[in-house]
């Protein structure tokens, strides 16, 4: 009978751990509290099902344990019970799926006023590019990547000249303004992951992926890589600072554009570079 008791303890222990243990998600810093809510709904539904199934198992084990001379019932099937259970399960599944799909639609629908921020990953550091005053990022091409053009910005594209380049540095974002993170990798798969923002997306060489969010509180947030990218994977860190408008503008004013970065190298070089 120990097993019936242990099954009950498994349920009690699991629920107690869930409610009482200090380990829980980190406080959110973006607009994606919808995701947290959907997760909570899922926790409640699945938790109730888990408790019901395991407690029912424990009850059966205790109630129908072998006794001398006992015989099991003979009941090959019961259409009514099976249909009811199937129907209830379908309802429960739909109750989780429906809000999930609604929130997913929001997650992939970027608002019109979202500002573009490009994140460029390579083994094992983060770089960023902001669109500059024209609000548009210049085109990029992995084939153009070199020491003096580390992000492979296409020099002929006029939109690229005023792009702000942050090579192997930290990103600043203004609070309460939606951003579309355009994600690019120059070598292998990476994943831009800031736990407080809830969103994440792989970065794939050869294509540009995206996700969007609105930072909702200022502060310093750690960036981690969440897709295995080689031995340095666990050490590929950086920081995102969410600033109020004044701090953000002050920081932005200190950054160099693609044109500014390219200029001094050409002046100082013995021969013109192409």
């Amino acid at each position, binding site marked *: 009978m120990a097993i019936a008791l242990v099954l009950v303890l498994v349920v009690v222990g699991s629920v107690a751990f869930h409610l009482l243990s200090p380990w829980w998600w980190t406080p959110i810093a973006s607009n994606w509290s919808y995701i947290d809510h959907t997760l909570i709904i899922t926790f409640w539904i699945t938790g109730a099902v888990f408790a019901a199934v395991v407690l029912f198992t424990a009850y059966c084990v205790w109630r129908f344990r072998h006794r001398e001379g006992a015989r*099991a019932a003979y009941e*090959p099937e019961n259409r009514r019970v099976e249909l009811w259970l199937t129907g209830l399960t379908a309802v429960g599944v739909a109750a989780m799926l429906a809000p999930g799909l609604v929130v997913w639609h929001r997650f992939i629908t970027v608002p019109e006023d979202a500002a573009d921020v490009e994140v460029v990953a390579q083994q094992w550091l983060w770089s960023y590019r902001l669109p500059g005053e024209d609000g548009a990022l210049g085109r990029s091409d992995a084939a153009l990547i070199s020491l003096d053009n580390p992000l492979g910005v296409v020099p002929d594209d006029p939109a690229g000249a005023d792009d702000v380049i942050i090579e192997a540095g930290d990103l600043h974002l203004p609070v309460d303004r939606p951003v579309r993170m355009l994600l690019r990798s120059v070598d292998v798969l990476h994943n831009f992951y800031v736990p407080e923002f809830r969103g994440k997306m792989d970065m794939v060489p050869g294509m540009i992926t995206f996700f969007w969010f609105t930072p909702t509180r200022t502060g310093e947030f750690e960036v981690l890589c969440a897709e295995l990218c080689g*031995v340095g994977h666990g050490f590929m860190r950086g920081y995102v600072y969410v600033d109020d408008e004044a701090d953000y503008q002050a920081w932005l004013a200190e950054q160099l554009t693609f044109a500014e970065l390219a200029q001094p190298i050409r002046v100082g070089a013995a021969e013109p570079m192409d």
Partner: protein
Amino acid sequence: MVDVPQQSAPAVPPPAETADVHPPDAATWWGRWVFSQDAKYIALQYAGTAVGIGLVALVLSWLMRLQLGFPGTFDFITPEAYYQFVTMHGMIMVVYLLTALFLGGFGNYLIPLMVGARDMVFPFVNMLSYWVYLLAVLVLAASFFAPGGPTGAGWTLYPPQAILGGTPGGQQAGILLMLVSLILFIIGFTMGGLNYVVTVLQARTRGMTLMRMPLTVWGIFTATVMALLAFPALFVASVMMLFDRLLGTSFFMPALVEMGEQLSYGGGSPILFQHLFWFFGHPEVYIVALPAFGIVSDLISVHARKNIFGYRMMVWAIVVIGALSFVVWAHHMYVSGMNPYFGFFFATTTLIIAVPTAIKVYNWLLTLWRGDIHLTLPMLFALAFIVTFVNGGLTGLFLGNVVVDVPLSDTMFVVAHFHMVMGVAPVLVIYGAIYHWYPKITGRLMNEAMGQFHFWVTFVGAYAIFFPMHYVGLVGVPRRYFELGEVAFVTTPVDGLNAFITVAALVVGFAQMVFLFNFLWSLRHGRPAGGNPWRAASLEWQTPETPPGHGNWGHDLPVVYRWAYDYSVPGAPQDFIAQNDPWPGRPAERRA
């Protein structure tokens, strides 16, 4: 067409085929144990090899847990070594242990016996299947000794990193040996798999209709069909990646810059590999799960002395799950950068698959209901399976529900989920199955006291490992991290929890040594079991000899009169009626 449950026993059929069987290999020790063509011996060869390489994976899991639980303590665990441990542990467990043991081990042993056949239909191909599998395992093991060691690309082997220098073994032999080993495995499996399918379809004995087969056979049969359809995707992906690595093709390689150097690749798609991998990889989950579903159904039924509840529904659930599992693969890729609109489709299909899966769980519970539950070791493991499988299945509803997956993907929550659902749960079934069928294979029962110790430590310990791990992931700790260090988003440190998990993993690992000892010790000292110690109804327990001889059935093949679940039939002389028992009485009220 469907004849279970039946209204009445068929008229006594004519005698079954009586051809004598003289297997070509049975005469000598070498022929029996090495170049065996008897499915039962091939099964033992498969199982022994799978467990052997599985022990390597077990040790690797200890090493990786030592790093996670006590970072910085063990100098020999470098980041390179850590990723190699992770990769090889995962690949061995999923492919070389679980797939090989369920299909090559249990499939070979049980299919012919359970359907009343003398052997697999192509014994020679069956032998070749094992030898190619062994070769695959040896090639895989060789990578531990190759320069640079085995690949550290993660078991998913995602390019481009899998074949580049920043990954252990990427520019050395590691990844090559891994890909070659997978290709060999698939060749070997295809030979075995065709055997299992054709045997089930063509070699069932008289009276053994499809809808009278034990669910174990249904599970293994469906899983084999799925594997035959899914493994080719991995096969071509492996060949294409080999070409990318060796011949300079660019199937999976776009133009890229590695450490400042332009590589000569261009135009390929890393996501194409992910689609191919998961087109194999998701069905693979069910290739492991369906045999476990089938076996656990039989364990519960036999040891609760009650027919499996809703047999027809159980069969259809297996078939439907198998079919659906081919249209859910991209739920592994919600944050891969694929077209985000795919998320709607794959989240919907993924959650739909929960319905037939839930039906199976309900039917196991309803089999226990009003049963006569004997708390034998197989029953204990079956109960533990229900707990861990339900737990792991429910967390699948988090990860399958596309937007909920976004914060959780690539965290330890995923690791906890898939270990619970396709690691712990199927392994518990394997143990239950071994305790259950050991007497048929050896003629002896395994030691009960050691078995109890093994059960309690394994069940409670495994739950203690993987339940808290979900919360490590919920906190935000990413998976595949050599060392997280101190980070601001972890508001309550998880170090203590990680150390606890590691200690639990070491303890559970130790308990497996007790199991191995029991397995060997009982060969000689176990209590003699007789032919049918559990008083089970399915055919494998009705063989004239135990262990069954070559050809399984002596002179006459058995004739089957009923399904495999006639337990506690009202009016029957005992609480089970063997499938080959022509007892004519059938209760009239059976179709409720």
